[in-house]
């Protein structure tokens, strides 16, 4: 039912997978996510929707190979079927014309940022996008993001592309230039969102972040994804995934993301033992 139309590696260990899911394509709004189950014994993996084609009934999922499940999923081939896809889940982004919006995407956080960026621009905002990565080979969806933004800037940790530094350095430059910023949206690793929020707090810039916590059902039933927002416990799956970044307890989020580190290691070891040549015989190497 959820046929993989296309799957390809778009940067090292980052996969772009096009999946046939016509209803989800029709109903998905920017900011919402889906949960994918790769195989019958698979876990429920929350993934962001990077793009969609309503006419063809396709959604585009971008994911990084981090553990056993995502590594295994990276080995799937076009024409095969995913065990299940459920969505859209979570609250959509509040899209409105506010003036100037700075969209900051770090790593695969660029994927969920894409539909939001596009919607913000379509709503009449001036959208300045900052994409950050460790080096020039790790940017994803560059073309799409360029098209979705009024202006786009890049930063790399090693200086191989754009500014040598972090996304916050670039954001600081924009602030310093005197440009009036009405909204900042940041999606990426928790640590990146944390430092962005630390900076925007100083200047009182409204900041929205999208959190990627551990989930099971994704419908508010289990509470695995809970996080402190302004001292109050919220569920990322139904209350979010977007929150006022200035209220998020990022340290707690980061600790909770590590909850199954040991188990993830065990699963990965077992997988490697069973697939000594890499999942598809080193196909991706």
């Amino acid at each position, binding site marked *: 039912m959820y046929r993989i139309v296309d799957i390809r590696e778009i940067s090292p260990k980052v996969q772009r997978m096009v999946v046939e899911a016509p*209803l989800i394509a029709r109903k998905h709004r920017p900011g919402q996510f889906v949960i994918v189950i790769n195989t019958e014994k698979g876990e*429920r993996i929350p993934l962001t929707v990077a793009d969609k084609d309503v006419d063809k009934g396709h959604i585009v999922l971008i994911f990084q190979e981090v553990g056993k499940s995502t590594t295994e999923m990276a080995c799937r081939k076009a024409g095969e079927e995913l065990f299940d896809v459920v*969505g859209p889940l979570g609250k959509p982004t509040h899209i409105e014309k506010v003036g100037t919006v700075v969209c900051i995407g770090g790593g695969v956080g660029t994927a969920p940022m894409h539909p939001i960026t596009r919607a913000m621009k379509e709503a009449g905002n001036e959208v300045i996008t900052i994409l950050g990565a460790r080096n020039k080979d790790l940017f994803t969806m560059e073309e799409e993001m360029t098209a979705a933004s009024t202006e786009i800037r890049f930063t790399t940790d090693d200086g191989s592309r754009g500014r040598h530094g972090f996304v916050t350095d670039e954001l600081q430059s924009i602030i310093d230039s005197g440009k009036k910023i009405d909204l900042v949206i940041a999606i990426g690793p928790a640590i990146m969102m944390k430092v962005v929020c630390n900076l925007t707090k100083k200047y009182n810039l409204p900041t929205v972040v999208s959190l990627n916590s551990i989930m099971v059902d994704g419908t508010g*039933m289990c*509470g695995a994804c809970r996080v402190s927002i302004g001292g109050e416990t919220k569920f990322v799956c139904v209350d979010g995934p977007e929150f006022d970044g200035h209220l998020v307890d990022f340290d707690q989020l980061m600790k*909770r993301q590590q909850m199954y580190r040991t188990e993830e290691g065990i*699963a990965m070891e077992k997988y490697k033992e069973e697939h000594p040549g890499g999942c598809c015989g080193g196909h991706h190497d």
Partner: protein
Amino acid sequence: MTEKKWIPQPKTPRTPIPEQAPEVRARNFDEVALGYTPAMAVEEAYRCLQCKNPLCVAGCPVGINIPKFIRAIGEKRFEDAYMALKEDNALPAVCGRVCPQEDQCEAVCIMGKKFKPVAIGRLERFAADTFIQSRHEEVFQMEPSTGKKVAVVGAGPSGLTCAGELAKKGHDVTIFEALHKAGGVLVYGIPEFRLPKKIVELEVENLRKMGVKIHTSYVIGKLFTVDELMEEEGFDAVYIATGAGLPYFMKIPGENLNGVYSANEFLTRSNLMRAFDFPEADTPIHVGKRAAVVGGGNVAMDSARTALRLGCEEVYIVYRRSEAELPARIEEVHHAKEEGINFQLLTNPISIKGDDKGWVKALECIRMELGEPDASGRRRPIPIEGSEFEFPVDIVVMAIGQGPNPLVQETTKGMDTNRWGNIKANDDGYTTKKGVFAGGDIVTGAATVILAMGAGKKAAAAMDNYLKTGEWPSID
């Protein structure tokens, strides 16, 4: 029907049900109770007095004709016994296992006045299991198609029952289930050792054979709203049975530490996602060596006994009232104790202590004593000043209740809820929105499987009437 004379044997002691030995079963997920043999069932059946005015029937939330099915067992007409059950109960194999018979049919059984009540639940289970094992194809009495389309939201006990009843009446029924498997609490909540999942799968399969369509991984409120189902997807009526799926936490310090679970999460990982089979199954679960389960209901017992089976060495139940107030079934408490669960009664958690990596390290509690009765009629637990203490634990499971999941209510126009977020509906399931019915835990708050099924059955009758007449009562 054969008209043999029924000679009851009231002096026969209540037949015990064979069980796996506690020390064995505490380390496996196989069913604890093994079920009656035919000889045991017949002997137990003859304890029934076949009362002219059977109190047991009135004690059953779905009004099963209990004397009829028990007589059939006694006369070794096992298939007839099953059919008698099915007249009023869509899921006898489930109810025979998880119904609190001691508070319902067996509580009022006249035998209980002088001796012990007839083991109605065990007999129900026997009749259902015997039928299932006989591999008889079930024959469904289906009325001709009405051409009406009905949606059922939620594939738990209430939704499944309602769907079955509506299908029998000739309506075109589609169930929408948010999870990837149908069954609701029967698959994500109640563990295998109490309710084998095969039984649920079989009942779901039966519904499919009746022509009911089941769409899993459809989150109503997200993929479609109830209004869209009716306005765009052509459904003439909707039954909402989304259950009590929102876990409550205590709001004490440390609840977001790693290793703190809601019972829903803990049980869902183990049951639905098969984390007990990790790493064969991908979903992990963390139990450590010592677990504390907070709460005293069936969900708490299920969580504690699951933790034990997952390899925990020491498992505590932490409950703020005394043994007499434990809301769990006596049988479950008894089983838990036999398996070595450590009951810390009159004890209430006040904080969860963590280490510098954000992991649970200890549970801090305070001892309680019972004061005057509160609104629920139970004696109110009062903290004993200065009795604070803590003990080391690796995980804490919060099993203190669940509320209504708001996804459907938030997105359905004109359907009223009460102040706890439960859908307002009358006994027949009518809500304040025409064409929309609701029942089970989403209306009553967390209750039992059988009450949810009863609501589903009643609502199906009301829906059938609405679909034929278009009449809608005011429910205030």
